[in-house]
């Protein structure tokens, strides 16, 4: 299991590293913002952890902290993708061609 996870980590890292060669600097900000949204994937971890807390014990404190994690990550995901889309929408809408 651990080796599988480490293997996935290595493969994903290599994949990610070679993925974004030659990005026009025009897209750096949206790309960064999109990747930032993706890093909100930790919401999955937060969901898992909170569910375990709920199943295992009744500590309100632990649930509360977990709830913060879910909310924070979800804000990251939703706002991240939305602002990225807002930026990209502006590029998609081509400026009125001169003449």
């Amino acid at each position, binding site marked *: 299991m651990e080796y599988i996870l480490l293997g*996935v980590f290595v493969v994903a890292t290599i994949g990610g590293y070679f993925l*974004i060669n030659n990005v026009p600097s025009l897209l750096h900000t949206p790309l960064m913002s999109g990747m930032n949204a993706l890093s909100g994937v930790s919401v999955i971890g937060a969901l898992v952890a909170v569910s375990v807390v709920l199943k295992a014990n009744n500590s309100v404190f632990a649930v509360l902290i977990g709830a913060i994690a879910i909310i924070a990550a979800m804000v990251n995901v939703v706002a991240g993708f939305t602002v990225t889309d807002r930026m990209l929408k502006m590029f998609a809408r081509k400026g009125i061609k001169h003449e």
Partner: protein
Amino acid sequence: MNNCLFPVFLSIPAISDTVYYLIAAFLAIAVLFGIFLMSKVKKARLGNIISAIALTAGIVITLIRIELIPIWVLFICLGIGTVLGLLLALRVKMIEMPQMVGFLNGLGGLASAIVGAYALLGIGADLDMFSRVSATVALQVGTLTFFGSMIAAGKLHRILPQKPISLPKHQLWTGLSFGLCLVFIGLAFVNGISLVLLLVGSLIVAMIFGIVFTIKIGGADMPIAISLLNSLSGVAGAISGLAIGEVLLVAVGGIVGASGLFLTQIMCKAMNRTLFDILLGKSKKVVQDGKPKGEKPIIDEVIEAKIDVLTILKNAKNVIIVPGYGMAIAQAQHLVKQLADLLVKNGAQVRYAIHPVAGRMPGHMNVLLAEADVDYDDLYEMDTLNDDFKTADLTIVIGANDVMNPAAREAEGTPIYGMPILNVDQCKTIFIFNYDLKPGYAGVENPLYKRNNGVYMFLGNAANTLKTIVDDYTHK
């Protein structure tokens, strides 16, 4: 409490591990594909949507797989996050985008840190050495991402002073807190170590490291810091995934961490800095010797007759516009576009030269100009346009300083020395719209301001000065 949270009315067939791995692999590939598309101008929006769908699918699969559907608390949290996220995203102004990304990044780091902390206490993870170590690392990276990002966002939002803050013995603090982070990771390898000690210790040292590391960063290094923190939040997610055995977290986090790091490298290269120097808060000292202190800039040639300016504008057939952060602050992009339109109508070719690190984030200028409807085909990267300054009739600089400061070529020992710059100084006629004659963000004086011929300075808010010129041009 358990009974009320787990009513046994819903039983969805559990997803087997193999199926889950296949789904995770598929989603990871979708995310890779999404990022890949995001690096192409025409398909970028589609790429973002694909990534968003993949991530949403990941969340749904997780909810189903570990039978979380009946737990309504989770949905309330997800709902609150969604609503807050939408509110934030739809209200933020384009100019605030850098601090927005920084802030959101901090939230992601916070979530990873909490997952790491849970895992360290054996919640959602086995208490073996592998989980313990990865949980410690996730907690540390997440914590430092959170504090670092919040400080970076605060600085960019001007809640915190923008100048680099240096504590006494700053490097010692940075080095020490970083060293202690490593010590606690080392301790995590020891079986039977107190988990509370690991948790509290890691939290404190990572917090200190995140803070001292970011407050020292100022000026030109900020885009790199944001990008690095962006990469780190991916890493934090991936490692927290290792701790709790969530393969999707590992895959997506790894992808984001690596591509974020690559982006950071691109930026470091453009700034002629090494990541290591930035991490340790090393900044090249601004040398004051050789230059008499307190020398008043010469403003004699600053104000030229307006007629002169208009003549130059009307005669220019080959114009290059160089935008910088000042354009963002003054919100002058729409006026820049108006001026460019007038010039184009007059038969001129107008191109925009974008320095890779102009603004506070890579691509910052592109976003702002796109907002003002500037066609992206008119935007050129530094290397493409740098030889054309020689032949251009006119270069218009809007709120840019460091990125075209010739001192970067000559003034050894200054923070910007060696940074590739736009060859604005090779142009025979230059209009510079700047707020004042003070050195730019990097704190190095620009010799161009003192050039005697062909340089026209327009001081003050670029939006106002540009407006005057555009009005004059239209009415004459």
